[in-house]
């Protein structure tokens, strides 16, 4: 069964996505709409000053800047377009506002919108009431682990969340301590061996990071039989550096997924570390 948080988050996300789509459409519609209206009312007998229709370009710029703002990577050019629109169309200046200027501006905004979509990633929800949801492929992985984590002690899952959060913040000593304690507790109750290994890997590597040590000759790894439940496939046995790094990625992602599945109170905090988890997935 899907947890409550996912059920309540999904409609919000869909609503938000359609709003982004509308805003993306608004950029060319408003700016070119203003140009068309300016063309229609540009005759000498027209009662309207065509500068009024430049308001479309100004509003298009504001929409573009908002779309740039809600992206994880900020496009400084798109963000500053409202300033330029005010300078071109609102502030009195020596050059006259005419249809050509509005047309060129509308074309520029459209090019910037395409550039924003191609080069600056997908727009993300800017903290709408703190509700967010997991992104793919993390979401699918968490769903996979949910089946295995049924009946897991919520305290252990909470420890997994704490270890992940501490590690993400670079508090390696604390991460190692919590991981060590959780691993001991799990081992006493003969808990899930895969999770014990994950805690063990994080503990070991967190201690190495704390002491700024290089990779040791021998290190803790998942076994080949664990591959089915790991987020990333294990590199060849002769590629030790990669195996060392992928072991940590897999261990951290497993802790994240276990915490997400079995410790609902930590889901909000885990979302704060989602970008780190996605980075581990992607690399």
């Amino acid at each position, binding site marked *: 069964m899907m947890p409550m948080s996912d059920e309540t988050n999904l409609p919000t996300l869909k609503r938000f996505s359609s709003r982004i789509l509308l805003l993306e459409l608004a950029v060319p519609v408003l700016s070119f709409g203003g140009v068309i209206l300016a063309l229609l009312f540009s005759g000498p007998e027209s009662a309207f000053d065509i500068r009024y229709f430049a308001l479309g370009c100004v509003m298009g710029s504001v929409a573009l800047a908002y779309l740039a703002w809600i992206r994880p990577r*900020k496009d400084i050019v798109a963000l500053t377009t409202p300033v330029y629109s005010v300078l071109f169309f609102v502030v009195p200046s020596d050059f006259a506002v005419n249809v050509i200027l509005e047309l060129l501006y509308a074309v520029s905004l459209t090019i910037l919108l395409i550039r924003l979509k191609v080069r600056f990633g997908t727009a993300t929800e800017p903290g709408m009431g703190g509700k967010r949801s997991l992104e793919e492929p993390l979401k699918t992985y968490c769903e996979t682990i949910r089946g295995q984590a049924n009946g897991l002690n919520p305290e252990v899952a909470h420890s997994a969340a704490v270890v992940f959060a501490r590690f993400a*913040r*670079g508090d390696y000593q604390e991460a190692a301590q919590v991981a060590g304690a959780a691993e001991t507790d799990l081992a006493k109750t003969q808990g899930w061996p895969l999770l014990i290994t994950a805690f063990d890997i994080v503990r070991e590597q967190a201690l190495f990071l704390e002491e700024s040590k290089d990779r040791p000759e021998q290190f803790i790894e998942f076994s080949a039989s664990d591959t089915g439940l790991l987020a990333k496939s294990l590199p060849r046995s002769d590629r030790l550096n990669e195996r060392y*790094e992928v072991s940590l990625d897999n261990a951290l992602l497993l802790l994240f997924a276990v915490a997400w599945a079995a410790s609902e109170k930590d889901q909000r905090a885990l979302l704060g570390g989602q*970008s780190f988890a996605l980075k581990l997935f992607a690399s």
Partner: protein
Amino acid sequence: MKIGKVEVKPSILSIAVFVIFTVLLLVASINSPEVRSQLIWLIPCLFMLLVIPVALNYMSRSQYADLAPQYEAEAKTVRVRLINENMIGKPVRIEGVVERVHFQILNRPQYLVADRSGVISVKMFTSPDEDVHVNDVVEVLGQVIRRYIVVGDPVINCVSIRKIKKSGN
């Protein structure tokens, strides 16, 4: 140029500005007696164009020199991939290969440093102790910050960057 223990390196841009204005002043003073009569304050002003950037560079470099030992003691060596937005404000040490260098002539160099696990931007707000070029293997000490102060992806605000000779494995 060395002032005390600090190696001062004014940017090429500052020197270029000084040279251009020196030439302009020379030409103007040869052609105009009015300008010649004003040389008593024009020459000190001209030298200020060099003195101010040198003084600013000295101050920033001496500050960075004071910070480096503190970072040396506190920073943990991390892989680039492990640097994330939750680490904002943490001192870190990374080792990697310089893939790109920008804005070196402005004394505000930005490097793109890569290790096996990923790539990260390293921003420095003063001139480095030594010239760093593409393909140099370097050790970077710095603090994790956001690219645009309050927004953007994590980058490193570099306190020290130095070349190291270390064989990869």
